[in-house]
């Protein structure tokens, strides 16, 4: 079985010439003509020979002689000297490479055509060249209304200079771009993009650059907020923050003389410890509160409902769920710390909130008792008042004594009273203001009680949401059970946060989790 192909008979006179673009039309029949097509693909065939005129001496006309390569043909040249065997003209065939070149040219031409058509028509152009959907905030009917009031349109031209122009304008715009085509040093320069013409468009609606730090360089909006990324505008990423905050040089430049601004890349890694720890902040509050005692102390009675006192009794989420409501005497303290100074008369309570009121109250005690008697419909009001005053005097001595005792006593032991569920002689019903407050005696008038200061936020730059942390117990972050001192700031250290908020902890740890870039009051104008 012969698998061999027939040996092609190669013309000894010639080479195979794949470099030529055209092949003789007769070649597929195996008989290409000697002349071959020219470089433009025209058939060059004429006749098999060019007869030559021979004139022998003495002859006048001469004879045409065949000059066919090989043997002369039988019939010889025609009388007029032309060859009798013309070669039939062929239509030369282009080679595959010619077709390939044509295909290439066609694709190039088609590319240009498609682009010219699409770019030439303004309505198609914008759709065609837009690199992605505009965010819903910057499109749609709501935006259209907003744009109308701010004299904006919704075309590319609203933001891009080149957006309103055709191909020419685009090229012109490209040539005047900054950084320009080949300004590689600028591409490599790690500057945060400076505000550009597009920012002007942003500022038609948004408050002009509103930064977290007044000394921050002016940064283009688009540096953090990339448009054309779909319905939602891309959120700023850590990379955007780290671009400056992770850069030693930039931070060194930004830091004011003497203070070093830390370089930060990741919260868990190089985010500095919270300042209240490093700078050993103390709570300046004058109110005396012992968390450890309240949470763990054996002397602390159960609450009226029978429950044990816990964090949540005093610290309750505000409506938004982010922070705790401020602790208030009325809501959180009075249930145990009653202001009943007269053990016999639970109906009579000291006022809370002002030392002067307390003084005034004490100095008008007979009237208070009388009012009480009237309220209780006591038949013999005077007797009742006298009785009460005598009892007080027996217990406290003079009125001055009583006043002094009420303001300054910290004596927690006193007559047996039922307080909540706890009864017995373990604690005073009302020891005195100074048990909790800082009370200063004054020569004239009532003593001064320093108003307690309760800072709402210790970490002012950070966002926090207690509700989101509901699944962990308070004690995991707030070491209240060991704190006996009001001055203790019971916030967790960075490491505590980072046990969860780190790549290892698996909980989100971006900058924006805690921090905001813009100052609080950023709103649409």
């Amino acid at each position, binding site marked *: 079985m012969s698998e061999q192909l027939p040996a092609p008979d190669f013309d000894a006179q010639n080479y195979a010439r794949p*470099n030529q673009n055209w092949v003789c039309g007769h070649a597929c029949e195996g008989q290409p003509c000697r*002349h071959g097509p020219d470089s433009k693909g025209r058939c060059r065939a004429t006749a098999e020979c060019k007869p030559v005129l021979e004139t022998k001496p003495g002859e006048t006309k001469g004879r045409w002689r065949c000059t066919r390569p090989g043997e002369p043909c039988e019939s010889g040249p025609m009388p007029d000297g032309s060859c009798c065997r013309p070669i039939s003209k062929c239509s030369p065939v282009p080679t595959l490479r010619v077709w390939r070149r044509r295909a290439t040219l066609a694709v190039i031409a088609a590319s240009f055509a498609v682009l010219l058509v699409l770019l030439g028509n303004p309505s198609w152009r914008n759709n065609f060249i837009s690199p992605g959907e505009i965010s819903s905030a910057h499109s749609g009917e709501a935006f259209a209304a907003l744009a109308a009031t701010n004299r904006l349109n919704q075309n590319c031209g609203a933001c891009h200079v080149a957006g309103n122009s055709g191909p020419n304008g685009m090229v012109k715009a490209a040539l005047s771009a900054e950084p320009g085509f080949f300004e590689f040093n600028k591409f490599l320069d790690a500057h945060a993009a400076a505000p550009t013409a597009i920012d002007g468009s942003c500022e038609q609606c948004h408050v002009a650059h509103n930064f977290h730090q007044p000394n921050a360089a002016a940064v283009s909006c688009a540096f953090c907020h990339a448009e054309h990324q779909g319905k939602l505008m891309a959120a700023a990423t850590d990379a955007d923050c780290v671009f400056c905050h992770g850069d030693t040089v930039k931070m060194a430049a930004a830091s004011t003389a003497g203070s070093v601004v830390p370089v930060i890349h990741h919260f868990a890694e190089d985010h500095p410890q919270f300042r209240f720890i490093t700078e050993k902040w103390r709570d300046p509050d004058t109110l005396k509160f012992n968390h450890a005692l309240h949470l763990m102390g054996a002397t602390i009675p159960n609450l009226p409902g029978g429950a044990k006192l816990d964090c949540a009794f005093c610290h309750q989420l505000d409506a938004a769920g982010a922070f705790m409501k401020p602790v208030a005497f009325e809501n959180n303290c009075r249930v145990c710390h009653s202001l009943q100074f007269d053990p016999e008369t639970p109906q009579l309570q000291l006022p809370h909130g002002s030392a002067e009121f307390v003084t005034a109250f004490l100095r008008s005690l007979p009237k208070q008792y009388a009012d009480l008697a009237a309220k209780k419909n006591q038949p013999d009001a005077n007797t009742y008042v006298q009785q009460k005053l005598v009892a007080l005097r027996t217990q406290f001595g003079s009125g001055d004594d009583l006043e002094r005792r009420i303001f300054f006593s910290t004596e927690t032991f006193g007559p047996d009273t039922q307080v909540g569920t706890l009864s017995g002689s373990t604690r005073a019903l009302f020891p005195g203001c100074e048990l909790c407050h800082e009370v200063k005696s004054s020569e004239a008038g009532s003593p001064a009680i320093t108003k307690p200061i309760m800072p709402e936020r210790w970490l002012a730059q950070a966002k926090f949401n207690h509700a989101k942390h509901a699944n962990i117990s308070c004690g995991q972050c707030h070491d209240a059970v060991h704190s006996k001192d009001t001055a203790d700031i019971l916030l967790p250290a960075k490491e505590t946060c980072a046990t969860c908020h780190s790549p290892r902890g698996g909980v989100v740890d971006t900058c924006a989790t805690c921090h905001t870039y813009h100052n609080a009051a950023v709103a649409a104008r």
Partner: protein
Amino acid sequence: MPAAPTILERPQRWDAAFDPDMTDAALDRLLATAPFRDMDAEKFPKRTPLREILRNDSRIRRFRQGEIIVRQGDYGTSAFLILRGATRVVLKPHLPPALLGRQSPGKKGFFRTLAQLWNGSRPAETFSRTRLRQAAGLGARQTKNEVHVFLQDLPRVMDEHRTEQMTGGDFFGEIAALSRMARTSTIFADSDDAELLEIRWQGLRDLMKYDDALRTHVNKIYRERALSSYLNATPMFQHLTKEQVDRVAEQIEFATYGDYDWSGEYKRLAQSGSVQPEKEPVIAQEGDYPNGVVLLRAGFARISQKLGGGERTLNYIGAGQLFGLREISHNWRNKDSPVNLQFSLRAIGYTHLLIVPTRVMEEIVLPSLPKNELPEAIEIVKDELGSQPVAEKGAREKVGAEILEFLTENRLFNATASMVIDLDRCTRCDDCVRACASTHDNNPRFLRHGPTSGSLMVANACLHCADPVCMIGCPTGAIHRESFAGQVVINPDTCIGCKACFNNCPYDAIRMVEIRDETGEFMVDQEMKPIAKATKCDLCVESHGGPACERACPHGALTRINLNNLDALSKWLKP
């Protein structure tokens, strides 16, 4: 389709006389002049008498002043005897190539290289008329049926070059004729009536065989001019003193085998499918007593071994290689267990060789060789079938039996730069051909087709043979060896389209193309016949960076490779 075998009679000696027009009168005149006058006709055998040798193997040629007889660097098949008049030999330094009708060596300049960028649309085989008209310092005279090239401005040549006159009775060209080496100098006629007897090498060989004086004379010249320096350069004789080398040179024998113009015949034989090693002339026969170490000086020989009824090729050897040293060295060291030749040596085409007789080897050469340079002893393995000679290692292991047979059958070992294509890698993209075309004015100079063995194709591109038969018989010296690297190139300006090289080349590497002018019309002579030029691969001798075909192959499938020895090929096949 099996073609009916072409029955072809093997060409016999004297089937074609050197000069069919040789007359009896001329022969009588020859026999009356020296040295034939002094030869003893009785010593010649009946089948080849002196007169017939002269009649068939010689011709009388006449030259006019300034006409070149032999060119330095050409290959010739014949020797010359000056009958009348004078000739002049050009001593060193040689004539410049341009004066001999050759291309001046050199690379293309920057602008010619760049010009190829826009030459792409030129019609094929375009020559400018001005280029063809350029006088190359030589002219040609057309006589009856031969072309004589003469040196123009002869006085200047004589003035600028040292020359020496030779007169009647002098022989020249015999070494080139016998040993198939390039002519060492240019000789031109020094008088208008120079008459020379040209004897082709077969005739010269026979004359030498039967005439002692001539043999002594030629041997003397050969030993004087060529042998000593050659022996000094042969590794086997490195350890000999000068006197010893002279003694070896005195006793060395030399011989030629095969057919000098084997190419034309070979082409016919190959086409009729009757190339068989058994028919090649035997130089040494397996099983014979080793007469001496064979030293190949030119041509190629096949080492083979009997296998069953035929011969198995084991290797081929080329110029500079030895045969029989192992056996002789074995016998010299183990006198009690002598061996005979383990292999046969056959001439392929034409072979010129030296034989160092066994006695000389044993007395002079072998004792001088250090132990580590002696070949290993031969172990004879006896089995039930009798003694089996050890197989020659090397060639077969290097490239495999199939490729070895393929190379030998097609005589490709002649190549110094054959174009070998690995068909397993070749995507048939023709980038090589296109690259070739754009380096040669839009003309390819080879055909991407040729003999194939397995996935190996040897394309029809010039092999730049070690033994270039195409160079025999070029009348104008247009085909020649490039003087730097030895590529065989054709100078298109001096090529007259005589087809001598085309007919000689056994590898279909030369093609006659009909040239055209810039408009694409064929150029014709006065007869309106197209002008043809011989063209072939020139190994991009004028371009920078080597052969364009090899550099253009994106798949590493094509290489220009030396097949004289198989190291390069085996390395390329399995590096």
